[in-house]
C-alpha cells in the first residue's frame, strides 16, 4: 500500500510580534539596529510577524519589500502581517507576506514600548514541590515556579532544579541548581553537603571546590554580591 508523502496538520506557535508604531523606515531601522546590538544571538533566524494596528490609519504606503529586507539583514525572518488595512494587506501580499488572522492584542500597546518584552517577570507564588523518596542517579526533579523540598537522600548523578529555593533534609550527593530562572535571592539548604555541583542563578561550584570550603555537614548556599557563599547551619 502506498503511503502519503505528507500530512497536513494544524499547530500553534509562539511568534515574535513587531508592533509597528510609525511608518517611517529610518527610525525603524535605527531602533532595530540598537535592539540587535543588545542581543545579537536572540534575533538570529527568529520568525517575526508585523502588527499594523497602530499604523492602519497612516497615510502613505508602507514599503513592505524594504521592511522585509531590513529585517532579514538583521537575521530575522519576516513571515506575515496582521491587523492591516485592506490596502496594506494587498501591499503585504505583493511583498510575499502571509496575512495572519487579525487578533486584537489583549494589552493596549503604548508607543515607546519595545517589541521584546522584559524577560524578568515576578514569580507567581506556586506551592512547593515536595519529595519524600530518595532521588536516584539519573533522575531529575524540577520545581517550576517555586521551591523544592526533599526529605530523602539525593544520590550522585541526580539533579535537582528549582526556580526558587531548594531544601534537602538529608544528604545531597548530586547536583542542586536553585533560582534557575535568574532569582539571585534563591538559596540551597541541606543537612549533609556532599554535592557534585551547587548553583544559584547560574553561579556554580563543583565538588572539587566545595571540598576546599567545607563538607559533609549542614550548610546553606547563597549569593552575595554575585559570589557564591557557603555557610554552615546551626
Amino acid at each position: 500500500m502506498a503511503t502519503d508523502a505528507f500530512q497536513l496538520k494544524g499547530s500553534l506557535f509562539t511568534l515574535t510580534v513587531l508592533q509597528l508604531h510609525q511608518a517611517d523606515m529610518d527610525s525603524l531601522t535605527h531602533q532595530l539596529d540598537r535592539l540587535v546590538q543588545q542581543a545579537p544571538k536572540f534575533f538570529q533566524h527568529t520568525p517575526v510577524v508585523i502588527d499594523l494596528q497602530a499604523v492602519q490609519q497612516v497615510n502613505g504606503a508602507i514599503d513592505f519589500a524594504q521592511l522585509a529586507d531590513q529585517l532579514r539583514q538583521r537575521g530575522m525572518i519576516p513571515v506575515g502581517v496582521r491587523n492591516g488595512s485592506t490596502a496594506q494587506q494587498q501591499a503585504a501580499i505583493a511583498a510575499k507576506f502571509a496575512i495572519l488572522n487579525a487578533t486584537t492584542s489583549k494589552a493596549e500597546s503604548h508607543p515607546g514600548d519595545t517589541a521584546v518584552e522584559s524577560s524578568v517577570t515576578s514569580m507567581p507564588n506556586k506551592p512547593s514541590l515536595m519529595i519524600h523518596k530518595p532521588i536516584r542517579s539519573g533522575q531529575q526533579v524540577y520545581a517550576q515556579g517555586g521551591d523544592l523540598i526533599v526529605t530523602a537522600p539525593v544520590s550522585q548523578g541526580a539533579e535537582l532544579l528549582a526556580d526558587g529555593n531548594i531544601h534537602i533534609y538529608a544528604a545531597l550527593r548530586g547536583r542542586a541548581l536553585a533560582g534557575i530562572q535568574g532569582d539571585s535571592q534563591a538559596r540551597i539548604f541541606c543537612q549533609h553537603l556532599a554535592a557534585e555541583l551547587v548553583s544559584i542563578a547560574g553561579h556554580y561550584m563543583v565538588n572539587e571546590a566545595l571540598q576546599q570550603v567545607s563538607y559533609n555537614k549542614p550548610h546553606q548556599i547563597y549569593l552575595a554580591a554575585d559570589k557564591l557563599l557557603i555557610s554552615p547551619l546551626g
Partner: protein
Amino acid sequence: MSEIIVVTSGKGGVGKTTTSAAIAAGLAKQGHKTVVIDFDVGLRNLDIVMGCERRVVYDFVNIIHGEAALSQTLIKDKREPNLFILPASQTRDKEALTLDGVGRVLEELKQQFSYIICDSPAGIETGALMAMYYADRAIVVTNPEVSSVRDSDRILGILASKTRRAEQGETPISEHLLLTRYSLERVATGEMLSVQDVQEILAVPLLGVIPESKAVLRASNTGTPVIFDETSDAGQAYSDAVERLLGKDKPHRFIGEKKKGLFRRLFDRSKEEQLA
C-alpha cells in the same frame, strides 16, 4: 498468589545469575513451586549455573513467538522437584523480547508457580527493562564498590519510574538490597565499602550480605546453585536471605563489627578523582 521477583543490578559481573539461581533453588527447597527465567537473550548463562545446559530444547523467545509451548520449554531441575528453569535464546538478541509477549508468558507462569524469578541482564536497556517491568519485588545485587553502588542507584530509580507498577500508580515494587562479594578484611583495610556505607547511599532495606567465597566459583563451574552447598558460608548466607525474603527475621551474619571512618575519606577521594 504468585510473586514476580526481578534480580537486577545495572552493572555486570556482580552476581545476578548466581543470586537468581541460589534464591530460586532456596525458595524451591522451602517447598514453593519456583521458576527462574533467563532474560539475558543472546548471552545466556543461567542454564550453566543451574547445570541444565545440555537439556535445553526450546527457549523463552520460542514461547513468545508461539513456536513452542510452555510445558515443552520449562526444564525441571533434577535435584529439587519444585524448581524449573526457563532458558534464554542464545541465537537471538534482546529485541526479540516484547512487553506484550513477556507479559503473556508471565501470566501463564503465574497459573502454576508461587515464585517467578527474573534474572535480568546487565545494563538499563531493553533486556533489563523487560525483566523488571512486571515485577512485584526487586533484589538489587550490589558489590561493595563505588561504581556498582552508583549503577544500583540508577536501577533503583528506573524501578521506581519505568515499571508497570510505577506507570499504573500501584504500590511501588518492594526493593531489597543484596550485597555480594563482601570481604571483611578488605572492608577493614578500607579497600571496600562497608554494609553501612552502601546502605547509607542506597537507602534500601538489606536482604543479605553474601561473603566473597570460593564456593561461588566452584558452584558455577559444577552447575550447582551455591545454596545447595550447605556447609559453605555463601550457601548459608543465601539461605538466610531466602528466609528473610519469605518474611522471617534473621540476624545478619558475615558482616563483622561496625567499621567506619577510614572508608569515608577514601570514598570522598575516589569521588573527587571521578570528577577530576
